[in-house]
């Protein structure tokens, strides 16, 4: 009788199986992320900023390169931010529409941030995974190289790379990304070391899968969580880095611009046209905050134990 009852229970459970959906790791993470208000709001703000950078130029009749001669003589009075004149953000010190300049700068800064982080993550993840996976002498040699490179004054390398490449935006973020992978490599290596001892990797080994295939098919997918969190935190770092270099006058050059270049111009003219500093600064700070909140949200979502 007792046995019968147990069997019935199992049967009922089996019947119910179809009704319950299994929760995958990713669905679980998405749920946790959706509960994080700051991260969600940041995501919304970031979407707006992205829209602004991609489509914002349709909203104004001015272009980023024409000079408003009529107001040029008295920018301090007539170049102020003004909805009626169509100069939403005012004029810059040479009479261009700051709104359009800001759209242009946002596009370049965001692009450099995302692509720079992408380059850094790809190089770092592969390097770290190979180093951790192969282990032994190769590992210690590869990590020693990372140590030496970290002792290297970072900015110097980028400046030299830019001297080699010329002041080209596309190559600049490749350069920035290519030297920012060091931390990524360290993190991924650490994770790989612990992953390597897992049974499914050993199983793949015993059936003779090629090590490179194991790294690409088994190790890297299992590292994705860490990699995504780090990538989200790397984007603002890249944006900051690019802006920093442009601020010093070594990055993006005219007629192109970026947040850093705009802030630099604003800082030089802050006595006469303070809005030139205020608008790009606000855009930059908003973006940095958004990415950091999203990064924190992702970390909580993907790595609940790590908190």
């Amino acid at each position: 009788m007792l046995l019968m009852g147990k069997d019935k229970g199992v049967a009922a459970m089996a019947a119910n199986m179809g009704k319950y959906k299994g929760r995958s790791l990713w669905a679980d993470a998405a749920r946790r992320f959706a509960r994080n208000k700051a991260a969600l709001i940041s995501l919304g703000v970031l979407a707006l900023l992205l829209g602004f950078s991609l489509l914002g130029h349709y909203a104004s009749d001015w272009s980023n390169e024409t000079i408003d001669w009529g107001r040029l003589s008295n920018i301090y009075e007539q170049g102020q931010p003004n909805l009626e004149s169509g100069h939403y953000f005012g004029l810059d010190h040479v009479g261009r529409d700051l709104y359009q300049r800001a759209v242009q700068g946002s596009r370049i800064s965001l692009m450099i941030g995302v692509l720079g982080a992408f380059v850094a993550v790809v190089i770092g993840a592969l390097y770290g995974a190979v180093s951790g996976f192969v282990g032994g002498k190769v590992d210690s040699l590869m990590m020693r190289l990372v140590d030496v490179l970290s002792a290297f004054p970072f900015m110097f390398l980028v400046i030299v790379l830019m001297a080699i490449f010329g002041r080209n935006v596309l190559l600049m973020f490749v350069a920035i990304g290519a030297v920012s992978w060091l931390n990524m490599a360290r993190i991924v290596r650490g994770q790989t070391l612990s992953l390597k001892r897992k049974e499914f990797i050993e199983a793949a080994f015993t059936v003779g899968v090629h090590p490179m295939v194991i790294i690409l098919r088994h190790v890297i997918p299992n590292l994705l969580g860490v990699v995504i969190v780090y990538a989200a935190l790397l984007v603002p770092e890249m944006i900051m880095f690019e802006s920093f270099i442009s601020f010093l006058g070594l990055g993006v050059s005219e007629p192109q611009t970026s947040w850093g270049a705009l802030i630099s111009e604003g800082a030089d003219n802050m006595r006469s046209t303070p809005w030139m500093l205020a608008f790009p600064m606000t855009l930059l700070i908003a973006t940095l905050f958004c990415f950091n909140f999203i990064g924190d949200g992702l970390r909580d979502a993907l790595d609940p134990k790590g908190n």
Partner: protein
Amino acid sequence: MLSFIIRRLLVAIPTLLILVTISFTLMHAAPGGPFTNERKVPEAVMKNIEAKYHLDQPLWKQYLYYLGDLVQGDLGPSFKYKDHTVNELISSSFPRSAYIGVLSFVIVVLLGVGIGVVAALNHNRWPDYAGMTFAMSGVMLPNFVLAPLCVMIFAVYLKWLPAGGWEGGRIEYLILPIVAMATSYVAQVARITRGSMIETLNSTFIQRARAKGLPRTHIILRHALKPAMIPVISYLGPAFVGIVTGSVVVDKVFSTGGIGQHFVNGAINRDYSLILGVTILVGALTIFFNALVDILYTVLDPRIRY
């Protein structure tokens, strides 16, 4: 202990050599020399200039020349400022950076650790939230935003402080540079201190000290602070170098005449020897302080043995 210190410092030498080699190679791989931008000079004059700076020699010979001078502490002549050697340029600007840097560092340690400890002791109460809001903003606000903002508020609008300059290092000229320099480091130190302090306060030996009935201040100062400082120290080592060698941004915005300005000018002018000199100085300091941090660990945590 002594043998560990000696060994640790000896390891630093090959690292420094690699650093010098990489910087040297990269700098010379860059197209365009320091003299290509100037107006055309007769071939013979150009030859003479190049010969004077050994630029006509093969690269490995230039490298050996440079290394030979470096061992004697000579960083060579500046290519751009023809009347000055790199040593002169560095020795005139580095003390300023170091002065601002050391003052900033003291503030970073006192304020950062202070905020961190207070936040940890009031975990999840308002001082914690206030401290961490400050720390989060401080970490996210880049100094090239903070520095012009400070100038705009305190120098242009309120007119409380001068917008820049050095003036023999008078205090009113130092306040804004120090604020711009220290804020992000204070924020980082506060965050790290808070995290590690919370962890330490939850550990068993603190519980035991509490159970024994020791006074609260005694527990915090004598038992908790020392082990909680270990992650802070590992952050402070490299941070100290960054602070002392001067933030390029601070030097630019406040025209303090610090070493950061030479770095940027060197890059713009392709002044090989100047930028190499600054890089080597910064690199050597970084390596030295990393070694110092390793040595400090053994003092702070007797469990660490080498």
